[in-house]
């Protein structure tokens, strides 16, 4: 079953035709449009301006201005400690959990500054879902894991919950493996299955954006491939922002790539271009493995 048929998203036109299928990037075609063309043709879903993140006095992310287009896959790469995870977690305000963390500048989602006092963080996080580095299912049943979000947002009817759980598990390509044991503990699954469960859990609240924080770093190559395939399938329905330290992965799955170094956005552009013809010396040094 195609995941997108569930809510009729099949065929949603991203406005970019086939040109930005990940396979196109990988196939080495040269006709990559410049970044401003992409951003003109699609709407910016998340936009930052002079956005900085501080841990107490330490500026971890420095004055970043970027626009992330809707329904494409954007990768954020950079050496560890460069602030890429911090930036990602700022998009649904997960950094609120860290004492002493504060921000300056603007971060807009759907045109709304999410660091405004009036923002309902619960709704923000519902619309901006997240998958974490290590699979972190709750010590509950598979069903309860997926239903956790919908229940949180007030859905209690069983038939509706059943439907959502099935759809989410199908979308995360886990349904066939677990449909007979939905009431077993989510921690009993393999690592790769756990991560797909977490993906299903994030999808169950029907978000617009999926944030993925190195989602495959704890997985074996096979499970990694499955997750990457899934990203390809979800592309076009969701805006996906993925942080990865694996440059091959960024090249395989993303349309756009941002390179962060020591909290500064060094370069941001179509993946193909960034990996083949980087404009900045630092980017070139990084992708050719001279540091990081």
């Amino acid at each position, binding site marked *: 079953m195609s995941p997108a048929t569930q809510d009729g998203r099949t065929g949603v036109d991203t406005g970019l035709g086939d040109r930005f299928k990940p396979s196109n990037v990988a196939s080495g075609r040269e006709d990559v449009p410049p970044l401003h063309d992409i951003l003109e043709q699609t709407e910016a879903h998340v936009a930052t301006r002079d956005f900085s993140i501080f841990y107490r006095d330490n500026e971890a992310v420095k004055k970043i201005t970027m626009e992330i287009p809707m329904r494409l896959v954007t990768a954020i790469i950079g050496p560890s400690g460069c602030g890429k995870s911090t930036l990602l977690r700022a998009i*649904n305000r*997960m950094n609120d*959990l860290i*004492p002493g963390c504060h921000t300056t500048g603007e971060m807009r989602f759907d045109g709304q500054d999410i660091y405004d006092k009036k923002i309902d*963080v*619960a*709704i*923000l*996080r*519902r619309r901006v*879902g*997240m998958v*974490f580095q*290590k699979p*972190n*299912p*709750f*010590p*509950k049943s598979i069903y309860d894991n997926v239903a*956790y*979000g919908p229940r*949180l*947002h007030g859905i209690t009817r069983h038939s509706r919950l059943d439907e959502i759980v099935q759809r989410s598990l199908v979308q995360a390509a886990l349904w066939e493996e677990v449909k007979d044991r939905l009431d077993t503990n989510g*921690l009993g699954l393999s690592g790769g299955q756990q991560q797909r469960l*977490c993906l299903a*859990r*994030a999808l169950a*609240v029907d978000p617009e954006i999926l944030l993925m924080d190195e989602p495959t770093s704890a997985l074996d190559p096979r499970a990694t491939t499955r997750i990457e395939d899934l990203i390809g399938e979800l592309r076009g329905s969701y805006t996906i922002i993925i942080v990865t330290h694996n440059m091959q992965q960024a090249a395989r799955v993303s349309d756009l790539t941002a390179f962060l170094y020591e909290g500064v956005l060094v370069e941001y552009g179509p993946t193909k271009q960034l990996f083949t013809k980087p404009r900045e010396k630092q980017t070139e040094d990084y992708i050719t493995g001279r540091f990081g």
Partner: protein
Amino acid sequence: MGMKARNLLDRLFSGVGVLAIVVMGLALVLILAPIFSRGAGAYIFKATVEHRRMLLERFERGNAEALAAEAEAVREARAPVYAMLARYAAEDLAGLSGREKREARQRLEEVEDILQELFGPMPGAATPVLPRQQYGATRWDRAEVKLDRLLYVETWDYSDSGSMGQQVLKPRREEFAGTALEPLFGYVETHLEAMLRPEWTFYWGFLTDSSFDAHIFGGIWPELVGTIYLTLGAMVFAVPLGIVSAIYFAEYAQEGRLVSLLRTCVSTLAGVPSIVFGLFGLAFFINTMHVSRSKSVLAGSLTLGMLILPTVIRAAEEAIRAVPHSYKEAAVGLGAGRWRTVVTVILPAALPGILTGTVISMGRAAGETAPIIFTAAVSVGKVLSPWETLTQPTPALSWNIYNLCTEHEAVDEIRHVQFGMAATLVLAVLLLNLVAIIMRARISNKLKG
């Protein structure tokens, strides 16, 4: 210093450490062994026919027909004794007069008293008022002690003024040499079994029977129930309060002056001597708040609850902090607020740890004595109904162990009850701890995966 000497010192050092641990283990064994081995004697012992008669008459347990047959056999075995007594009174005593007669009568009364302790009231005598005089020796071990007293007169020899008096045992038979009573002693010694018919018995009623006549007969049910009431009551107050406080400390509190002050207060509370809790319970809960007119289970539970509160808080906070941070992230990432995260994810995951801490503090509450002396405990009482706990004091295992071995009128008569109570209490507390240890092991296994 040479290498050899250094190595020797090293060995010596390790030896001292190991010795310390061995001493610790030995202390544990030395303390528990007598309590458990003699405590078992309250449950398993050689019970005499008097015990069975007591059970049937007081608790309506046992086989009436079999007992009637037994009583008949016993009466036959005892008959010669009473016959000898009657003959002594008729033949020997009648021939005496004046001081001699008085002294002889006194000696006879001593024998009669011991016989009554052994076999109960004499045939034909009026039923005595005190239950302890209505039944003979119910336990064979007590009967043997009494037999010794029957056979020997205890006197003290003070001839050596340099040391303390020496105990001298003189056969009582000599006092009655040449009289009709002389053969009695030999007869009782050889026929005691036939007269009391001891049988190995497992007396489960020790746990579930009420006691009467100051614990000389019966079990420890009221004390047990009192302890359970007090313990549960303490948990009712301490556990919710403790968990909420732990949630605050672990999830909400932002480290600062106020929070560190609160923490210091809690740890100080843990160091308050238990007797001071008792004083406080009396001064605050009873004399100031008037939760009850005088001692009550309620006041005792409140006091015990305060006593175990720091333990519960510490255990719950540790358990909450042990919940992986990733659970919290996942819940918050789905849009759960702080309270929702705590209730739906963190508490369920921390529950086994919290329960472990709770079970350990239950053991603590069950065993504490000093806080309930002035707030809840009485020496003798009946089983309370749940609503009576609000106003009535109760006996409790811990308090009655103290009470029975220091303030009881016949301390030696009821050693088995004291040991039985102590063993029951210690066993209950250790079992609670064992449950906690097993739960903790299972949690750590689960976290390891």
